[in-house]
C-alpha cells in the first residue's frame, strides 16, 4: 500500500465525506494526516508529498517526439505549480475563475493543472486537437477567464477571442515569445524565478476543482463540474484498482483533455506520491513498447483502441522489447473485448483489467481488481462502497434476474461524483431517477434513495459481473471518447454543399465506433470523392479529428419523424445490422 493516503484506506474516505468536516480541516483517524491540512488537490499532489519527505522522488518522466526528455521530482512539481499559481494571482485571476489549459501533453500542462487548483481556480483542460469551433463552444459555456496555451495552439484562440468577452487573459507557456500578439502574456515557468512557497487557497470538499466537457445526444457539450472532495475516490481507486504502490513506475496513456487524463493521469498517482510517465508523441506500437522498456513501466493504464492497435501489429514486434517490468495492466474508455484480454495474457503474460466509469462519475465505478478472476469481456464488479444496479428500461426498477439488460445506475453520494452540469440544473436533475421536482443539485447528489443513471446499458450475471451492452442514447463512443451527434450535424450544415445532415456511430474494429455522416446536398452540388474529402477536412479542422466522419453517405432525403426530427436511431440500426424498431412515427415518403 502506498504510504501517501494510507489513512484514507483504513479510516475510509466515505466516512470523511459523509462527516461534513469544515473546509480544509480533515479528521485524521490514524495519525497519518495533521489537523488543518488542506483539502486542495493541487497541494495534496505536490506539497503534501514533499512534506512527507519525498521531495526528491521522481514525479514525472516526460518524453516528447524525437529525443526530448525531462525528469521532474515532487520538489519540482511543488515549485513549478507554485510558479503557475503565483503568476495567475499576479495576473488578477481570482478563486473560482475558470482557467482553461489548451496544450499538448507537455510538462507545463501538468504543473499548470496543479497551479490553477492551488490558487483556487477551476481548471478546465481541453483536448488540444479541438478545432476553433469546439474550443469556442466550451469556453463560452464556461465563461472562461484565462487560457493557458502554447505557440502551436494560440492561433485557434486568436480566431475566436473577439467572440469571448469573458476571456480576458491569453497566456502562452511555450514557444517563441517574440511571436506573441498584443495583449498576450508569455510565461515559461522553468525559466521564471522559482516560487518555493505559495499560500495555497483553502478549498473545502465542495470547492469546484476540475471542469470537463462531455457530449450528449442533444445540444452542445455540457460542463461536468467536479469538486476537491473527488480526490478521495480517485486516490482510493488508484490504489485498489490500479494497484499503485510507491515504488511503481506508472503510465496512463490518456490525454488530460479528457477525464481519464486528469483523474488517473494526474490526481490519482500523484496523490499517492507515485512516479508517472508521460509520452507526448503520436502513436506507433514500436514507440510505445520502447517507452515501456526504457522507463521500466510497471503499471500501464490504457484504452481498448490502443490495445487493439497493438494486437493488430502482432506478437513479433512485442518480442523485440523487454517488457518484463510490467506487472499490472488496466483499460478504460470503451468495453474491452474478450479477444483483447485473452491476447494480452498470452502476449504479455498479463491480462488487461477492464474498468468502467465516466466523466460524470470522476472515478472508477466498476472494475476488474488485481487478484480477482477475470471473465474476459466483462467490466467486472462495482467498487467497494459503490451501490450499482441495472434498471429496467421502462420502470427504472432494479433488475434481479441474471443476464437481463438494463440501464447501469449508481446510488448517489460517492466523493468524486460531479456536482453540476455548469449552468444546466435541469440536465443535472434529469440524470437522477426518482428525483423530486425542484430538488437542488446538492439534494440530488446526496439522496441515496435515488439512482444516478449512466446512459449505458449492461447486464449482470449470476456472479455479479457486469457486461456492457451499449449506449442508451445516440452519443458516439469513438476511440474511448464521446462525441455528440448534434455538434457534428450543426457543423456539417455549415459546409457550403450540405443541406441536411445526420451523424451516427458505425462499427469499427479498432475504435469500436467511428463517425458516419448521412448528408443531403444543396442544389448545384453533386456527390464525389473530392466533396467527401472536403467535408471530412472541414469537420476535422472545425471540431476535431475525433468528430470527423470517416464515411459520408449521400442521400436524397433523410428519414424523419412526422414531426420533422431526423431518425438517427434508424440510420444507426442499419449500420449495426440491428432491428430498426418501431417506425410508426416515420414520416410518410
Amino acid at each position, binding site marked *: 500500500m502506498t504510504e501517501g493516503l494510507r489513512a484514507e484506506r483504513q479510516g475510509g474516505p466515505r466516512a470523511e465525506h459523509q462527516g461534513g468536516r469544515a473546509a480544509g480541516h480533515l479528521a485524521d483517524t490514524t495519525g497519518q494526516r495533521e489537523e488543518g491540512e488542506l483539502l486542495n488537490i493541487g497541494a495534496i499532489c505536490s506539497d503534501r508529498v514533499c512534506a512527507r519527505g519525498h521531495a526528491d522522488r521522481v514525479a514525472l518522466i516526460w518524453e516528447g*517526439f*524525437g529525443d526530448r526528455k525531462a525528469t521532474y521530482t515532487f520538489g519540482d512539481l511543488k515549485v513549478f505549480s507554485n510558479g503557475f499559481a503565483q503568476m495567475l494571482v499576479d495576473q488578477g485571476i481570482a478563486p473560482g475563475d475558470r482557467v482553461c489549459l489548451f496544450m*499538448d501533453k507537455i510538462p507545463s500542462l501538468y504543473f499548470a493543472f496543479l497551479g490553477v487548483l492551488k490558487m483556487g481556480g477551476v481548471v478546465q483542460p481541453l483536448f488540444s*486537437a479541438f478545432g476553433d469551433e469546439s474550443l469556442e463552444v466550451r469556453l463560452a459555456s464556461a465563461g472562461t477567464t484565462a487560457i493557458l496555451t502554447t505557440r*502551436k495552439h494560440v*492561433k485557434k484562440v486568436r480566431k475566436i477571442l473577439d467572440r469571448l468577452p469573458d476571456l480576458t487573459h491569453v497566456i502562452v507557456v511555450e514557444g517563441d515569445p517574440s511571436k506573441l500578439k498584443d495583449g498576450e502574456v508569455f510565461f515559461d515557468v522553468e525559466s521564471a524565478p522559482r516560487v518555493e512557497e505559495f499560500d495555497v487557497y483553502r478549498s473545502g470538499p465542495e470547492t469546484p476543482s476540475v471542469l470537463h466537457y462531455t457530449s450528449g445526444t442533444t445540444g452542445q457539450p455540457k460542463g461536468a463540474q467536479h469538486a476537491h472532495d473527488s480526490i478521495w475516490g480517485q486516490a482510493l481507486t488508484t490504489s485498489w484498482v490500479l494497484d499503485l504502490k510507491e515504488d511503481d513506475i506508472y503510465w496512463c496513456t490518456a490525454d488530460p483533455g479528457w477525464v481519464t487524463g486528469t483523474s488517473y493521469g494526474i490526481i490519482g498517482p500523484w496523490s499517492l506520491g507515485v512516479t508517472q510517465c508521460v509520452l*507526448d*508523441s*503520436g*502513436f*506507433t*506500437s*514500436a*514507440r510505445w513498447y520502447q517507452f515501456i522498456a526504457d522507463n521500466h513501466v510497471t503499471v500501464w493504464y490504457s484504452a481498448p483502441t490502443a490495445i487493439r*492497435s497493438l494486437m*493488430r*501489429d502482432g506478437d513479433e514486434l512485442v518480442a523485440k522489447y523487454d517488457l518484463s517490468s510490467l506487472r499490472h495492466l488496466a483499460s478504460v474508455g470503451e468495453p474491452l473485448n474478450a479477444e483483447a484480454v485473452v491476447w494480452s495474457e498470452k502476449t504479455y503474460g498479463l491480462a488487461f483489467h477492464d474498468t468502467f466509469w465516466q466523466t460524470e462519475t470522476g472515478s472508477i465505478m466498476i472494475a476488474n481488481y488485481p487478484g480477482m478472476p477475470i471473465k474476459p469481456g466483462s467490466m467486472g464488479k462495482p467498487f467497494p462502497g459503490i451501490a450499482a444496479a441495472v434498471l429496467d428500461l421502462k420502470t427504472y426498477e432494479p433488475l434481479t434476474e441474471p443476464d437481463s439488460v438494463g440501464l447501469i445506475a449508481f446510488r448517489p453520494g460517492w466523493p468524486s461524483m460531479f456536482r453540476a452540469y455548469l449552468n444546466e440544473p435541469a440536465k443535472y436533475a434529469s440524470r437522477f431517477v426518482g428525483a423530486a421536482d425542484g430538488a437542488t443539485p446538492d439534494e440530488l447528489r446526496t439522496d441515496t434513495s435515488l439512482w444516478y443513471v449512466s446512459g449505458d446499458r449492461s447486464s449482470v450475471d449470476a456472479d455479479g459481473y457486469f457486461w456492457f451492452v451499449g449506449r442508451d442514447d445516440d452519443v458516439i463512443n*469513438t*476511440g474511448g471518447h464521446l462525441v455528440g451527434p448534434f455538434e457534428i450535424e450543426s457543423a456539417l450544415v455549415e459546409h457550403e454543399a450540405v443541406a441536411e445532415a445526420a451523424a451516427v456511430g458505425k462499427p469499427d*474494429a479498432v475504435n469500436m465506433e*467511428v463517425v458516419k455522416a448521412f448528408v443531403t446536398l444543396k442544389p448545384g452540388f453533386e456527390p464525389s*470523392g*473530392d466533396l*467527401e*474529402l472536403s467535408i*471530412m*477536412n472541414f469537420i*476535422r479542422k472545425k471540431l476535431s*479529428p*475525433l468528430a*470527423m466522419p*470517416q464515411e459520408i453517405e449521400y442521400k436524397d432525403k433523410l428519414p424523419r419523424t412526422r414531426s420533422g426530427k431526423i431518425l438517427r436511431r434508424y440510420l444507426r440500426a442499419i449500420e449495426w445490422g440491428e432491428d430498426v424498431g418501431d417506425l410508426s412515427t416515420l414520416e410518410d415518403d
Partner: protein
Amino acid sequence: MDDIREAVLEYVIDEYIDEDDDMEVDADTALISSGIVDSFSMVSLKAFLENRYDIRIPDEDATPEAFDTVNSIVRIVEKHSN
C-alpha cells in the same frame, strides 16, 4: 514518383500545417509519430490518396508506420497503383 511525392507533400502542408507555422516539413519528416497527423486524421489522408490516384489501400496496409513520412506514403501509393 517525384510527382506523387510533390503532390502528397503539398497536401500534407496545406491540410495539416498552419499557414503561419514555421515548421519545416519535407518528404522524410515524421508525420504520425511526431503527432502532426493523428490516427483519426490519417483516414482523410488515406481518402485523399485513394481519390487522387484512384486506388484502394486496404486497412492492413494503412498503418501508422506506412503513413509516417511522405516517402513511405509514396511507396504505398506505388504499390497499389500497379
